[in-house]
C-alpha cells in the first residue's frame, strides 16, 4: 500500500565547516494512512526540524518528501501553502494561539483563511470544540483557559480544515499530568477516527501510546519499534498517568 507520507534520504544542515550541524541526516520514513507514529529523542536531536520538513514549513537540503502522492520538496512557496492548507494540521508545544481571539475564533481561523464561508467555519469550529470537550469554553480568551484546554483548542484548530495528517511537536511538553492525559485521550479519539498522526516527543510515556515508535539521535533514526498496545490500549495506564 502506498504510504500517505513518505520521506527518502532527507537531509537538513545548519552552519558551515566546523560549525556544521546535521539536524536531519539521511532520514527515511513512511507513514500509513490512519497510523500514529511517535518520534522520540533528546532535545536537539532534530525531531522538530524533521516535523517542519514533513509539514512543508521548511525545505530539506536534499532528499524527497511525498505527501498524498505529491512531492513536497518540489513545491514552490504557493504550492507548499496550499498543501498546508488542505492536507496538514500542526500542533505546537507552545500552543501558538492568538491571544486576542476567543477559543472558537482561534479554531475557525484556518478555515476562514482557506476561504470557507464564515458560518460553515464557525459551525465546524464549534463541532471541534465539542469533540475536544471545550464547548462551554468556546468564547473564552486563551488567557482564561488552562494549559491543557489551550492545547485542546490548538488540536481542534489543527483539525479545522480536515487535514490528511496532523503533525504534533511536543504537544504535552508544557502540560501537567492531568492535562497530558486529556490531550492523549484526544489523540486516541483521533486515532480511532482514522486520523493520521505524527507526534514528536521526548517523553517515553507519550511515545508508548503510538502504533510505531522511532528513536532519533544526532539527526538520524537509530531505532524503530512497532508497539502492539498503541493508542488502542488503556492510554492512562500505559502512559503511567493514572493508577
Amino acid at each position, binding site marked *: 500500500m502506498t504510504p500517505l507520507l513518505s520521506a527518502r534520504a532527507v537531509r537538513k544542515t545548519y552552519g558551515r565547516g566546523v560549525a556544521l550541524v546535521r539536524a536531519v541526516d539521511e532520514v527515511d520514513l513512511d507513514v500509513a494512512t490512519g497510523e500514529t507514529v511517535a518520534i522520540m529523542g533528546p532535545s536537539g536531536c532534530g525531531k522538530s526540524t524533521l516535523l517542519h520538513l514533513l509539514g512543508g514549513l521548511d525545505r530539506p537540503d536534499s532528499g524527497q518528501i511525498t505527501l498524498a502522492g505529491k512531492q513536497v520538496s518540489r513545491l514552490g512557496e504557493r504550492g507548499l*501553502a496550499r*498543501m*498546508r492548507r488542505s492536507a496538514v494540521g500542526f500542533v505546537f508545544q507552545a500552543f501558538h494561539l492568538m491571544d486576542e481571539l476567543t477559543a472558537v475564533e482561534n479554531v475557525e481561523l484556518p478555515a476562514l483563511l482557506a476561504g470557507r464561508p464564515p458560518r460553515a467555519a464557525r459551525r465546524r469550529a464549534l463541532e471541534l470544540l465539542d469533540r475536544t470537550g471545550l464547548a462551554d469554553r468556546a468564547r473564552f480568551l486563551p488567557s482564561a483557559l488552562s494549559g491543557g484546554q489551550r492545547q485542546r483548542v490548538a488540536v481542534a484548530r489543527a483539525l479545522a480544515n480536515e487535514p490528511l495528517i496532523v503533525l504534533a511537536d511536543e504537544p504535552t511538553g508544557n502540560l501537567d499530568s492531568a492535562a497530558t492525559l486529556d490531550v492523549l485521550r484526544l489523540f486516541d479519539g483521533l486515532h480511532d477516527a482514522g486520523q493520521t498522526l505524527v507526534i514528536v516527543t521526548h517523553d517515553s510515556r507519550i511515545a508508548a501510546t503510538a502504533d510505531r515508535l522511532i528513536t532519533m539521535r544526532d539527526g538520524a533514526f537509530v531505532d524503530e519499534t512497532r508497539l502492539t498496545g498503541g493508542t488502542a490500549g488503556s492510554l492512562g495506564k500505559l502512559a503511567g498517568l493514572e493508577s
Partner: protein
Amino acid sequence: MGRLALIARLALRDLRHRPVEALLVLIAITAATTTLTLGLVLHGTSTGHSYEQTRAATAGPDAVATDVSASYLPRVLARAKQAGVVAVGGPYPVASVLMRAHGYTAGVTAEGRDQASGPIDRPDVVQGTWVTPGGVVVERSFAAALGLSVGERVTLNGRVLRVAGIAVTAASPPYPESGFLATPLAAGDEPGLVWLTRAEAASLATPAAPLTYTVEVKLADPAATTALAGADGFTGNWTSWQAIAAEDAKEVTNEQLVLDVGSWLLGLLSVASVAVLVGGRLAEQTRRVGLLKAVGGTPGTVLLVLLAEYLMLALAATAAGLAAGRLAAPVLTSFSFFAGLQAAPADPPVTAATAALVLAAALAIAMLATALPALRAARASTVRALADAARTPARRARLTALSARLPAPLLLGLRLAARRPGRSVLSGVSVAITVTTLVTVLIYRASHGQPPPGAAAAAGGPSANPISQVMLVITVVLVVLAVVNAVFTAWATVLDARYPSALARTFGTTPSQVAAAVLAAQLLPALPGALIGVPAGVGLYAAVSNGSALTMPSDQWVAAVVAGALLAVALFTAVPARLGAHGPVAAILRSETA
C-alpha cells in the same frame, strides 16, 4: 547625582547602540524645530522698519499716480501742484510690455527714466549701474523671481536689452504684488517692474498698449496723504506710501502665517513620526526593561532612562533646528517679499525667546511621543519583560466578526491593523496631515490663479510667488517626513505581524497573501486619513485666509492627491511587507517561545 549620572549613561549607551533609529528621531524633530525657528525668526523681522529704511534711502515718494493716460495727465499734474506738495517726480513714460528671460515670459511695467537722478524716488542700485541706452534696470524681487543677474540679455517686446543693474524702490511693492499699481496685460498676469531710458520706454509702446505715465509727489507732511485723498486729491490713479507699506506688510504677514501653519503641521507630523519610532523601539527593548528591573531598577528609574534618551535627542534637535533655521532664514528672505526692500534682513537674529520656544516645542514633541510607551514599559511585569513577551494585542470582537467575511488578505490585514490601534491612528494621522497640506497648497494656487505645482513652467510664467515657494519648501519637508513615517510604520507593522503571519502561514496562507495583508493593514488607516485630509485642507485654508475667496482645484487634482498618498503608502510598504512575508516560519514560531 549618582543616579542621574547612571540614567544619563544608560540612555547614552542605548542611543549609541541604535544609531540609525536615534538619527531618524533626530531628523523628525529637527524638521519641526527648523520650520519653527524660521517662522519665529521672520516674525522678529519687522517689515515696517525695512520699508522705512528703503523709503529714506531712495527718497521714496509720498504718493504715486500710475497708469495715467496722456489725456488725463494734465489733470494729474495740476493736482500735483496743489498746496502741500513740495516736490514732483515725472511724469515718467510707462510701456506695458512682454519680457522674455530664462525661458519665461512675463508682463512688465517698463518705466522710462532720466539717466540723472530726480528729486524723489531714486531707486537704490544694489548691483550694476542705473539706466543707460540699451541697458535695463530690473527691480530686485522681480530679478530674483526670474533668476536674472547683471549682464544678462532680456527681450522686451522682441527688442534685446542688457540687464545694466538691479535696484530696489519704495514706490512699488515687491513682485508679484507690484502689479497692484499697474494694469496687467492679461487677467492673472502679475507684471514686474523695470526701468530704462525715456526714449526706449516710449519706443516700446504699441497701439494696443499705448504709453501711460507715472507721476510721484513728495508732501510737506507725509502723513497727510489720507487727508488729501479726502479732499478729492489722491483718488483714481493715486496711491499713498502708506498703502504701499501696508501691501508689503500684508504679504510678509501672509508669508509668516504660512510658516506658522507649516510649523504646526510639521510639529504634529513629527509627533506621529517619533511616536511610531519610539513605539517600535521600545517594543524591542522589553528584555532590557526586564533586566533593568531585575537588577533593582524601579519603574521610575526605567521611565527616566527611556525618557532621558528622547529628551537628549530633543535637545540635539533644538540645537540643529536653531542652526538650520538661522542658516535658512537669509535664503528664505532672499526670495521673499523682503527682497523688494533695501534692508532685506540678510542676517536675521535668533533671540533667547526664539531659542526657548523652539526648545519647548522639541521637548513637547519628545514627551508627547514617548511618555505613553515609556510609562507602559516601566509598568510592565518584570518576569514577562525578561521573557521578552510581546504586549498582548487589543481584542476587537466586532472587528474580528466583521473580518471573518473578508478574503484572507483583508481578514488578516484588518486584524493586524486592529492589534495595534495606536499605530494605525498615527499612520492615518500622518497621511491626513500630508493630504491636508497638499490640498491647502492646491487651493492656494487655484485661488491665486496659479497652475498646480509642476504645471507652472509649462504655463510660461515665472513661479515666483514667495508664498508659493515657502509652501513648496514646507510641503517638500513634510512629504519627506511623511515618507520616513510610512516606511517606519510599515517596518513596525511587519515586525509586529511576524508571529501572526507565521502562524497564518502554517494554516496555508501564502506569502503573497501575508504581504497583501500587511499592505492592507497600512492602507486601511491611510484611506480615512487621506479622505479626511481633503475637507481638513479646505477648512485649514478657510481658517487662515481670513474669509478671502476660495477656489477649489479641479476634482482630478484632489483625486490625484488622495490616490497619490495611498499609492505612496502602498509603495513604501511593499518592500518590507514582501521581505517580512518570506521569513522562515519555523524559526519565527521558535523565537516566540524562546
